[in-house]
């Protein structure tokens, strides 16, 4: 039986993307490994989330440290059924629990990268001028940009490893690409909406610190994007937006 410390020692193998042991893990489905994955996702994304929210307020740091892992887990669970069904349809005979484990492993890599960047994020936030009423939002935009770059890098790295794993499990690059595309589409579709509902993550400088906005369940991410595109082509005055 795997002990928690043994599974922690396996994390570098996951980062290196060594196909043979990772393939074996997916086939074995050890509970200890899944527990470690959950722990790493909570710790890694929680630490990065705390650093993200700290620029706005210490309370926002606590909120974002809770919400960031929550987004990951809700996305994983919300798409688990669909992902489990799509994989066999596209040529990879994975069981439901195995597809869930593969997605969790990919998010573990994502969380490890984000966790390793959280001291850097904290340093960046510490060096960014705090928000003061009426001040410019340049610093806010800069913090946002840095976070987007780090999260994008972590996402790309995690998905490259997931593609390699799917390739090794299916024995076909084409099948692996199709499954990854399908899983990514589902995850991004739901994940974007969950981010929208659970906003603010950084916290707009112009709005109060809250766990959820009063209009959290009003409208959705895609309607907002659609409206934003619409205003570009409209002659009317655009509504005031709070991207957060």
């Amino acid at each position: 039986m795997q002990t928690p410390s043994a599974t922690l020692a396996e994390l570098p193998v996951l980062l290196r993307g060594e196909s043979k042991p990772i393939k074996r893990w997916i086939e074995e489905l050890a509970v200890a490994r899944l527990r470690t994955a959950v722990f790493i996702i909570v710790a890694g994304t929680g630490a990065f989330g705390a650093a993200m929210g700290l620029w706005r307020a210490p309370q926002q740091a606590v909120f974002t440290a809770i919400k960031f892992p929550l987004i990951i887990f809700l996305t994983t669970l919300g798409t688990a059924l669909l992902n489990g069904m799509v994989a066999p349809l596209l040529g990879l005979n994975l069981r439901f629990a195995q597809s869930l484990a593969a997605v969790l492993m990919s998010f573990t890599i994502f969380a490890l990268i984000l966790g390793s960047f959280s001291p850097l994020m904290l340093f960046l936030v510490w060096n960014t001028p705090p928000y003061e009423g009426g001040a410019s939002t340049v610093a806010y935009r800069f913090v946002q940009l840095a976070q987007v770059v780090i999260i994008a890098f972590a996402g790309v790295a995690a998905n490259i490893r997931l593609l390699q794993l799917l390739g090794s499990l299916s024995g076909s690059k084409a099948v692996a690409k199709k499954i990854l595309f399908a899983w990514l589409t589902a995850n991004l579709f739901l994940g974007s909406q969950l981010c929208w509902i659970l906003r603010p993550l950084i916290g707009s400088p112009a709005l109060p610190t809250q766990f959820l906005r009063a209009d959290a369940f009003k409208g959705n991410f895609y309607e907002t994007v659609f409206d934003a595109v619409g205003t570009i082509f409209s002659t009317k005055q655009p509504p005031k937006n709070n991207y957060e």
Partner: protein
Amino acid sequence: MSDELTKPTPPPLQTAETYQPVRGVIPTVEAILREPGRIAATLRQHGQGRLVLGMLAVAAFCSVVYGIVVGTFSGGQQLWAAPVKIAIGMLISGLICLPSLYIFSCLSGSPVRLAQVFGFLAGLLALSAILLIGFAPVAWVFSGSTQSVAGMGALHLLFWIVATWFGLRFLNGSLKQFAPRSSDGVRVWAIIFILVQLQMMTALRPLLGTADTFLPQEKRFFLAHWIECLEKPKSQK
């Protein structure tokens, strides 16, 4: 003359099978400069905590000595403030960047352990700080003969760039012993490390010149700080 004679080449890296382990502070300093491969090969073995601690101590000591030279520019409180800030800043920058270096190494397919990465990072800091000591007499001469904070800052920055470049070369060479699939991750990390160190210098300002408080009251990015220093024509000791 053949190209082999004119082209400077770094000392060869040793394999774990051929090296003699490094023990003691002076042999560590010598090995970092003359046989970096020996340090890397020693660190590949288990239980090299003393070597790592030795390198961190060398890094701290050398940066304190260089900091005193930096402090001589303004004198007074800066004689102790600058060394403290430089040593602490250097070590904290290393700690901030350590997790991402380990993750980048693993993503590159390198079977390196966290303790070994910590050792290589300590080697980077030690080598950079030792090289700064080499520049210290030059810096001291200029400190006594110029009044311009911007000019002196540019000189220290130049010395720091040279020292850091050699430190990064040591790190890259050491990590290459683990046969990673690519060095791109370490190159990206090097940029992050340089940016963190530059920002750390700004966050702990003033290292040159004087101020009413030990640490700055206003947060600023390093480029904005440099531009402000250059725009102040009479920014002096």
